């Protein structure tokens, strides 16, 4: 039975997820360029926002079936979609707070799987699809990207060894502008489509659109704008971790990482084996540390990220399941509304929490002292009981 009020709430929530996807993933494209000074922080996020917008329109091969092959689509209801989005958003915000790059796609998928489990039980999930389409690619992504990036880094230093350090840095900073733009474009073609697919799925579920419909124009435009605005606001915390926390990056490494990321992201989509943009970008950055002689990789930071990646699916699933369970207990539209109000409250709390250790365009490139918050690593650890890293 159609429920337009829930549909509207789902669409708004989906756009909010798209927005968090934007700022969470800005670092994938721009962190290295900001770290090396190839682009100023605010220019970088502005360029990335524009290119994400362009990328969203460049490819309209909408993943209207983000849930297909993972859950039985007959079990997907509007409340399941809403609950799934709740799981995805909360995990995105939590990892953003701690400056941990994690996959927004996996967060969304985890949320939907959790909500489906709560609604339809174990039989509602296609476990082989989950393993073959999500988990195995998630594991392979950083290794593939790291290999390409390490090779690229080695080649760049080898080829340019006759140049002076200054000339080489200058030249590769110019190159980084191009490679960073390509990553932003790739991200826009890849990620905005997921939310387009979710909204289209919601419209079909609500019988607003017939089965098999393409995404309407207003869905495409709104999703493109949402991810673009999120990108512009810039997830400075994640940018800082990627740009300063993993490897101290020079411009040849930056260009190698970005080129590897762009190539792997676009090729994986082209060959129908979608890899996480975040896992690819992180793997690329680590690869540059391996490809350059004398470079150090902060493996403890990488380990923290890997841990977060392992927990992304199950944690988002737990939240999604809790949201769906709450919706069912309360029942009807009221249940969805209560779940979304709780989501808003949690989001506000996380945002206010982040103000205590603010990271912005002015301090994003500050020296890494072991925590995402510049110069407040001890204070951050004391406040959150999170083990100090670095």
């Amino acid at each position, binding site marked *: 039975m159609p429920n337009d009020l829930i549909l509207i709430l789902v669409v708004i929530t989906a756009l909010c997820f798209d927005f968090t996807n934007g700022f969470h993933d800005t670092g994938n494209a721009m962190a290295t360029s900001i770290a090396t000074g190839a682009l100023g922080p605010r220019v970088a996020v502005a360029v990335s926002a524009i290119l994400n917008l362009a990328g969203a329109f460049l490819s309209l091969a909408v993943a209207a079936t983000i849930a297909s092959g993972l859950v039985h689509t007959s079990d997907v209801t509007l409340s399941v979609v809403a609950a799934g989005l709740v799981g995805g958003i909360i995990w995105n915000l939590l990892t953003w707070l701690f400056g941990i790059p994690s996959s927004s796609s996996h967060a969304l998928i985890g949320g939907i799987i959790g909500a489906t489990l709560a609604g339809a039980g174990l039989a509602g999930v296609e476990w082989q699809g989950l393993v073959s389409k999500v988990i195995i690619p998630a594991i392979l992504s950083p290794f593939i990207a790291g290999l*390409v990036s390490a090779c690229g880094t080695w080649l760049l230093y080898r080829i340019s060894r006759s140049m002076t350090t200054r000339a080489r840095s200058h030249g590769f900073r110019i190159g980084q502008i191009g490679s960073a733009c390509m990553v932003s474009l790739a991200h826009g073609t890849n990620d905005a489509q997921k939310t387009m697919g979710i909204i289209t799925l919601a419209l079909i579920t609500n019988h607003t659109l017939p089965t098999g419909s393409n995404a309407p124009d207003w869905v495409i435009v709104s999703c493109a704008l949402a991810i673009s605005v999120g990108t512009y606001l810039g997830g400075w915390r994640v940018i800082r971790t990627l740009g300063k926390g993993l490897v101290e990056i020079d411009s040849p490494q930056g*260009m190698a990482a970005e080129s590897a990321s762009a190539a792997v992201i676009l090729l994986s989509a082209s060959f129908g*084996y979608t890899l996480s943009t975040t896992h690819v970008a992180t793997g690329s950055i680590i690869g540059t540390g391996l490809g350059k002689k004398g470079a150090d990789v902060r493996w403890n930071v990488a380990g923290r990220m890997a841990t977060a990646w392992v927990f992304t699916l199950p944690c988002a699933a737990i939240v999604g399941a809790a949201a769906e369970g709450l919706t069912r207990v309360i029942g009807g539209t009221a249940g969805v509304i209560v779940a979304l109000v709780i989501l808003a409250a949690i989001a506000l709390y996380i945002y206010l929490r982040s103000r205590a250790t603010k990271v912005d365009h002015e301090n994003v490139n500050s020296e890494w002292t072991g925590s995402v918050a510049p110069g407040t690593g001890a204070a951050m650890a004391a406040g959150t009981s999170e083990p100090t890293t670095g």
Partner: protein
Amino acid sequence: MSSWINLSAIWKIVVFGLLAGAGLPALFAIGMTSLSRGSVRGTRGATATAGATGPGGEAAAGGGGRGIRQAAAGGGGRGIRQDDVLIGGSVIGMMIAAICFLIVLGAIGWGIYEIYQSGHPAK
């Protein structure tokens, strides 16, 4: 095994990823290195590049063949550290660089075109 892991896609991503993700930046690096070469290679005791001297300008001795350093002149010398500039002045170097950069740009343009084509299937 194949139902769990798409080996066909994976090896293609790795191979083409290396070609595009490492090969294209390498081509850029070749172009940049070629572009930075001076028109007269700096060797131990070599003279300054064409058009680059002024009163008081002098060539560096030693330096390992990297390029020419010019001391800042009181009047008309350029005062530029020649080996720190990107454009060295070699015509052949610039031609090689142009070819390399055009290939890189062409590959990127072709990639964007392919993305557009696959994202806008014919109705």
